[in-house]
């Protein structure tokens, strides 16, 4: 169970960033009063263009940054990821291609290392390792330095290591980013499997097809605001379209018209 309640996050922009974003405003509201819920056994997708605020929201959930206001509640106990971040971290896992592993080490070493940081005993670590290494075919590379492995294998190891503590909640920023079709399929298949095991899963993506295929419910985010939340069918119905991409453009157009700006 994951509850995002009125999360707002503002960044102060440096001069360089202001230029890059082509704005004279010193502040950027990356997440603006965002609320949604994700149930166990569900994959929720944040869909939005570049710079919409997807990563910012996922970082707030995963305790890497603190929202200016609002709260994120986690699990049956409703632990606040904002106020009890250390405790919350034990229940969740944040996966992204931005979070890397130190590639000087072997998968085996890294798995044990992170297992210990999550406070697990050796037995549990070993049990989880068997399961995940089998799942992703890591066993034969268990003692090879990560630096010597392919990008796809690195990504699989990354996922395996992030799941060392068998977390309730899995947060995945751009799950198939930079992966070939085969590796991407391994990953999405595994996400389905985790969903069927009853995990609470939230992913972000700007790829319409992926959102349509992978997610049970989709939240469309534009300029830091959640514009529409629902199942694929609900979104298509309310926009009178048959295709998620068309639906997205209609919503995007509405937003820009409301703001009085051109496309």
């Amino acid at each position, binding site marked *: 169970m994951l509850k995002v309640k009125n999360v707002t996050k503002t960044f102060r922009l440096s001069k360089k960033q202001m230029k890059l974003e082509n704005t004279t405003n010193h502040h950027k509201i990356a997440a603006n009063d965002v609320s949604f819920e994700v149930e166990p056994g569900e994959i929720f997708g944040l869909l939005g263009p570049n710079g919409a605020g997807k990563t910012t929201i996922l970082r707030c959930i*995963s305790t*890497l940054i603190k929202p200016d206001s609002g709260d994120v509640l986690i699990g049956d106990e409703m632990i606040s990821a904002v106020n009890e971040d250390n405790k919350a971290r034990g229940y969740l896992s944040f996966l992204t291609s931005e979070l890397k592993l130190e590639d000087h080490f072997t998968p085996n070493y890294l798995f044990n290392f992170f297992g210990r940081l999550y406070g697990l005993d050796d037995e549990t670590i070993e049990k989880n390792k068997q399961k995940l290494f089998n799942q992703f075919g890591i066993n034969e590379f268990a003692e090879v330095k990560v630096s010597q492995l392919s990008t796809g294998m690195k990504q699989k190891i990354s996922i395996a290591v992030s799941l060392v503590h068998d977390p309730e909640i899995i947060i995945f920023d751009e799950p198939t980013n930079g992966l070939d079709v085969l590796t991407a399929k391994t990953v999405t298949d595994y996400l389905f499997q985790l969903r069927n095991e009853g995990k609470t899963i939230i992913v972000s993506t700007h790829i319409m097809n992926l959102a349509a295929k992978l997610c049970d419910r989709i939240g469309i985010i534009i300029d830091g605001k959640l514009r529409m939340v629902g199942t694929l069918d609900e979104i298509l119905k309310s926009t009178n379209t048959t295709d998620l991409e068309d639906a997205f453009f209609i919503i995007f157009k509405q937003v820009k018209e409301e703001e009085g700006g051109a496309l």
Partner: protein
Amino acid sequence: MRNIWTIVKKELTRVFTDKGVIISLFILPPLTIYLIYGLMGMSAEKANKSANEYTAIVYVINAPDKISSNEKEAASFEAFLDENLEINANITYEDSNKLVEIKTKLENEEIDLIIEFPSNFKETVENYIDTLPKVNMYYNINKTYAENIYLSFQNTLTLYENKIAGTRVDLDLLKVFEIVKDKTGDDEKEKGSAISKILPLLIVIYLMAGGMGIGMESVAGEKERGTIATLLVTPIKRSQLAIGKIISISIISVLSSIASFIGLLAVMPSFAKIGGDTEEGFGKISYDLTDYAMLFTVMFAAVLLFVAIIVVVSTYSKSVKQAGTLVMPIYLLVMGAAFFNVFTQDIPQSISSYIIPIYNIVLALKAVFQFELSITNWLFTVASTFGYTIILIFLIQKMFRSEKIMFNK
């Protein structure tokens, strides 16, 4: 505690499974220290040997005759020199009227030394006149062995003074004359020869350099590569992560310094040879256990402070490159403090000098090498350095908790 240890173990594993890092941290520094100072020691020994073979050209003005008092006699200066001088010298005896001409020769570096007795030396000494006669010694520092020759003659003159004093009944008047040293030539040269002054500089450079590479890698590098974020989503506390990093970098830095220290120990005996200016000094300068203990503790405190400084910069930076850019001015500042010390002659003894961060380290190192570090000043150096380090550790922990610093794009 377990988390901190897990981090420390990981960092140490990282370093000790990397051959390149092992060589650059633990093998190269002591080796270069050993080679540089070993070579310097060797060439100093060689210089000393050829100094012994050199025949000094010396002029003595108004050399006194036999001096007698109370029916006891001291031999003439000439006879005394023949008997007591320990170096080879070609000595010419002249009157005062030749002095100007001879001084020109000295300035032209044709001769090595002039000893000038006052013309009334014998009378003054024999009659116990109150004012001590002045014996002037002139030498040109630009000449290769001038300092050595001067010191040999100064020793001989002191012996001569004792001899004359021996003729006296009145033992209160042991001081018979005063030796006035008058050297010409470039003074910087003499300072340059005292290599002991450069050693603190070198040590400081090694100590800081030892922690710099891994210090920048271990935080800024992890930020740059995105591996620290992976740690930040685990339940480890920010402060534990920070402490783990500091401890491991310190351990590696200290080990690297111990390696350098061993190189230093191996080369200390020949270093003493370089430091000693006189023949007498050769091989006689030796550091005792207290000196080594003070040296080591100052080095230890210095390493921890340098590590803390480097980690602050490294944590603040977005990339190793930026950390390098930011740490450079600090490194130069440290080197500046050390350089400044090379060219200052005397060692201040006031406590206030020994609480100035970094400067006090260089000062204490220099003082140890010249046997002038008092226990109090040592204590203040070490204690204040630990104090600064603790302040920086608090700062680092604060920085680790700041998302602006840990997630700046």
